[in-house]
């Protein structure tokens, strides 16, 4: 859908969910997993979560905050907010076309 997101390969979808989860407030690993499950129904496993987080961190889309005991919260950066907004816009276009075509097919 988006070039920069495509580079994330199999971590593209988890990355989108993580960025959405972090878009309102910083969260640590387990809080991200429970939040993602609550708003999307996707049960993310720890290997996928940290695989995606490491890629997001390298691209500068999320940043780690100070560790609290063993928990390290992550926050979305300005670049992360920007890429998330672009991705959402792209998905909205797809949804719009899908709705239009489904309505046309249904009426035919």
């Amino acid at each position, binding site marked *: 859908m988006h070039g920069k997101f495509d580079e994330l390969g199999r971590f593209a979808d988890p990355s989108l969910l993580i960025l959405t989860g972090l878009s309102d407030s910083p969260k*640590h*690993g*387990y809080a991200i*997993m429970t939040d993602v499950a609550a708003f999307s129904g996707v049960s993310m*496993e*720890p*290997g*996928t*979560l*940290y*695989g995606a*987080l*490491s890629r997001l961190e*390298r691209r500068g889309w999320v940043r780690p905050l100070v560790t609290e*005991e*063993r*928990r*390290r919260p992550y926050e979305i950066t300005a670049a992360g907010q920007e890429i998330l907004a672009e991705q959402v816009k792209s998905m909205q276009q797809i949804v719009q076309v899908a709705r239009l075509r489904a309505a046309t097919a249904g009426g035919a």
Partner: protein
Amino acid sequence: MRPGLAGRLSRFLVGRHPRRWRDRYGEEMLDVLDQHQPTARTVANLGASAVSAHLDPAYRTGRLSLARLRRATLVSAVVAAPLALVLGPIGYGIWQDSHWHLAADEPLETAAFSPPAGLMVTLSGKPSMARTRYGTSPT
């Protein structure tokens, strides 16, 4: 897989990530595992994560020697074999339930699907036993 075994295997697999990865994410992953209910899926996911991290140039430490590759393959096989034994028959059962198939002694002569492809009608190839069968389509 029993939760206790899945938990132990999950922790073992966190330790099989490259050192740089463990230094950076190891404690966090163990903390997540303390709160998470590990299952066979968690174990498979962490196995894949360990392999992926070893192949990632950002976390790979040193050159991948033949001995290390052999050891990694052995560890993966030891973890994957019991998983395949448990999950394989379950997956095959689910696949069989979700797909129509003719019995081995019923050669197919004619098959037709209803417009939404939800229903299939077949005619057996045996002349003396020609009959109509109904079943769900493979969709």
